[in-house]
């Protein structure tokens, strides 16, 4: 099972096993990782599952689909490496992925 590391804004690391096919958002919510709200439940409609993907990983992820960048306009302090974690589907290739959680979701 791929291991995903969530780093909170206080620099706490949470490394957990997440099943293939789930999203990075679901991995966080199901394991009570603080800081990912996912108000809309994964519908790409709220921008409250915003994460920063560490640089070495950002380019390895499948590209953003239409609409994700639009939603990121509304995220709290978006950066170049911002993604919505509900749009990142876990697979073996993502084993070891690290994401930083912003200090707020809105």
């Amino acid at each position, binding site marked *: 099972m791929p291991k995903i590391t969530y780093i909170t804004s206080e620099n706490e690391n949470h490394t957990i096993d997440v099943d293939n096919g789930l999203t990075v958002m679901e991995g966080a919510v199901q394991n009570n990782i603080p800081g990912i709200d996912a108000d*809309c439940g994964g519908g790409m*409609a*709220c921008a409250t599952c915003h994460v920063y993907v560490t640089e070495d990983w950002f380019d390895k992820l499948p590209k953003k689909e239409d609409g994700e960048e*639009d939603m990121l*306009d*509304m995220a709290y302090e978006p950066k*170049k490496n911002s993604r919505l974690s509900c749009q990142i589907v876990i697979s073996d290739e993502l084993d070891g992925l690290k994401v930083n959680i912003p200090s*707020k979701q*809105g």
Partner: protein
Amino acid sequence: MIKTDAIIIGAGPVGLFTAHQLKLIGLDCEIVDNLDKIGGQCIELYPDKPIYDIPAVPECTGKELTKNLINQLKPFDIKFHLSERVEEVKKDDVNWIVKTNNRKIFSTPNVIIAGGVGSFEPRKFPVKECEKFENKSVFYSVKDKKIFEGKTVAIFGGGDSALDWAVELSKNSKVNLIHRREEFRGAQATVNKVHALVNEGKINLFTKYQMTSVKGNGKLESIGIKNDDDEKKNIKADYALGFFGLIMQLGPIANWGLNLDKKTIEVDTEKFETNQKGIYAVGDICSYPGKLKLILSGFHEGALAARACFKLARPNEKYRFEFSTTSKTLLKRLGKKE
């Protein structure tokens, strides 16, 4: 003080259908919503996105679903209180006293919270100092555009609200439009208009920039912005307008003495009642073992909560289950029979 059999907090799909159920069984109700329109998340988050899992409706958008639910309420007289946020729910001797931010007061034995993920509030600037200027020099909506005449305004955002106001205010103000990337998500016609005004020098456009600081003494004087490559700029501004859409906040609901599980309210699955007698929660905001956040589940929850309301609203009457196909009483309420 407005007296009613039940107050519904939230005019989303579940709140609307719950109102239908209450009226059908002969109870009065009033609906309060913080948004200025009916429809909740359906209208605010996905008005044009198709939904495929409403039973017997193969495909409909959030807007269409809302329209149909409003149509279904046509036989009934239901009072909506829009742009009102419920601030306080307190018990007097018998009833719940519900107060809104606009000082409306209701007295009712039943409060049904159909609040989705809470109330929609504008997303604010991440820069904390903006709070000092809020509603004076920093705004998240425009109430009176006259105050901007002859002034320098910094508009942040890339959607329709930001672009529409940039175009409108550029007639009588000096407009700086700041957006975090080069693409805009507003309507193409408006985007074209903005670019034309930029070429004419009527709008100063800063793309790939975001706010880093605000300065001023009582009134806003300047704004610091920074781009992706860490280049900083300082722009003069009398006003800042932020259009980053809305975010859902649980808000005052957290203070009503209800058992919460994260941002949801714990209920039983018989009446969808909370730990407070006469306060129910239905739709996305309620939680119980096996809860599914589907609109169809909310309809079920609302139908049962409505029946539970009957007991408290009509303590001396007995509720009789009836079908809308055959019951004369129900058909009369629906306006189908004399």
